[in-house]
């Protein structure tokens, strides 16, 4: 479904990505794990078009997308949940969701909303509340829900468990599984490697801008190197 071929990217003189190859198949959950500054978030930003790659190709459903501006990427069917949630705190939950469906028409917004509220019943309760008054977990749900409003085929999640209590993070992971069951492919970037690998089908391990390992989530969980470096054992 999505294919990154030999992607190079840099911020000024600093090379953030040095030849990344990633492939994601339909209906999969794939996770990217690695330390700070490994280039995980940059990879997501490059896919969603906010960051332009210096070299390499990105293919989505067989078409090149690395030269397309971010707003067109959303139209094609790739939505990103940016790191740190970035909901609009002064708009209501409902307005936030409507903004998520910006690329779709008004009629489609009405059609998608019930589906969203089915996955996130909390958001229906808080529909009229300002986004900033929600708790951290609810804000993360709102951020995911907002991305889903654009009816994406592929959902990019950047650190969904960041700053959340373990129980709440668990809830978010359960929701990600649910979304995947409904047919949305997921690419997940996580610091919490253990939880991410348990959720995913396959995983990539990144270090300083390179992919150093690629395997099924299960074998990564059992790999002694990964266990030592990322699972704290």
């Amino acid at each position: 479904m999505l294919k990154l071929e030999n992607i190079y990217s840099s911020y000024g003189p600093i090379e953030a990505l040095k030849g990344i190859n990633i492939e994601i198949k339909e209906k999969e959950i794939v996770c990217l794990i690695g330390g700070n500054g490994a280039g995980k978030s940059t990879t997501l930003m490059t896919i969603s078009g906010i960051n332009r790659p210096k070299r390499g190709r990105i293919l989505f459903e067989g078409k090149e997308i690395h030269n397309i501006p971010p707003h067109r990427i959303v139209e094609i069917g790739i939505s990103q949940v940016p790191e740190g949630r970035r909901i609009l705190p002064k708009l209501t939950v409902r307005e936030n969701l409507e903004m998520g469906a910006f690329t779709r028409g008004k009629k489609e917004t009405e059609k998608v909303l019930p589906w969203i509220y089915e996955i996130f019943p909390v958001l229906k309760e808080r529909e009229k509340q300002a986004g900033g008054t929600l708790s951290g977990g609810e804000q993360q749900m709102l951020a995911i829900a907002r991305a889903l409003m654009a009816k994406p085929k592929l959902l990019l999640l950047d650190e969904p468990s960041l700053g959340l209590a373990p129980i709440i993070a668990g809830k978010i992971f359960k929701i990600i599984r649910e979304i995947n069951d409904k047919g949305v492919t997921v690419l997940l970037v996580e610091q919490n490697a253990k939880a991410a690998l348990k959720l995913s089908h396959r995983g990539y391990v990144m270090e300083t801008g390179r992919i150093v390992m690629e395997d099924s989530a299960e074998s990564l969980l059992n790999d002694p190197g990964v266990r030592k470096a990322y699972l704290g054992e």
Partner: protein
Amino acid sequence: MIKKFIRILLLSLWFGAITFPFTGIRNAILLSISIMASLILWNTLSKGIIKREGIEIVSKRIQTFSSKIPRRILALFFIFLFLILPLFMNNYFIDITNLTGIYIILALGLNVVVGLAGLLNLGFVAFYAIGAYSYAILSTQANFSFWASLPIVILLVGISGILLGFPALRLKGDYLAIVTLGFGEMTRLVLNNWDSVTKGPNGILNIAPPEVGSIVFREPIHYYYLILIFVILTTFAIKRINNSKIGRAWVAIREDEVAAEAMGIDTVRMKLLSFSFGAIWAGLGGVLFAAKMRFVSPESFTFFESVIILCMVILGGLGSIAGVILGTMILVLLPEALRGFEHYRMLALGAGLILMMVFKPEGILGGPRKRAELRPDDERIYMQEIETIKK
């Protein structure tokens, strides 16, 4: 409480200190004391018992009463009021009202750029100048009528908005403000020095007045109705775009640009659109100004004008249409009302603005959203306020 009292004390002393060189010690002390007294009175009135039990009930009653009147009837009432208003005014007041009208159009235009899209534009007067000069040149050199020039000028100004937008887009905040400031000054300098086209500092004379049928606009009252129509049109158009998809995209860009991009908003296009959409109204204001004065010169388009228009937007309440209109009225009418103070009037105006920013930074009619931004410590209270309003 004590903190607030110290603040009031310091403020009044400060005002006494800056007015002392102009007015002498006796007047300065009197001024300090009167400012202190009025601030204390105002604070106790607004924060004390009276607010909780008196004013709040009254304001709620007014709110429920005004919500019962259909908005359309309210709007019609105001339009009717403004239609018959000039019959009770002399030419001097009509003239000031005309000026207010032009400034309302300008301030509403700037409100789109600064209030909605959050792009600080300090060179807004450039579009005002381009509008005024385009009409002046079309009228004197090509014999175009007011109505024929209008669409051409609006197109020109819209394009110049995009032209400023392109280089300015990659900048944010203060840097953007400096570039726009430069654009404003550049425009004025070109007007001042391009003698063959703009007649330089002498300005352009004998601009044709607008005509409808056989009526040529000469009296202030003619212009009153012309400007009134355009003010209504501007208010209506900006209200519509405020509530549209584009308006919401601007708000999203102002709040969080990365999030806006991730939501599929074409931020480049939307920013350019806000620049050029805001500029159109400045251009319209310029055409009206040139038609009313029948004379334009670079002097009318200094940086000070940009600042005054920005003050109008901020004083009334960033982002609120009614607030911007109110702010404009205050800033045009107040200097006239303060004429009795002779050369202290600009001082009094400045003092008023500073007091305003200290005690009500969100503007006179600024909504709870804006207040929450400016006073984060009180954020939660205002968030609840938003909720009650939404309900």
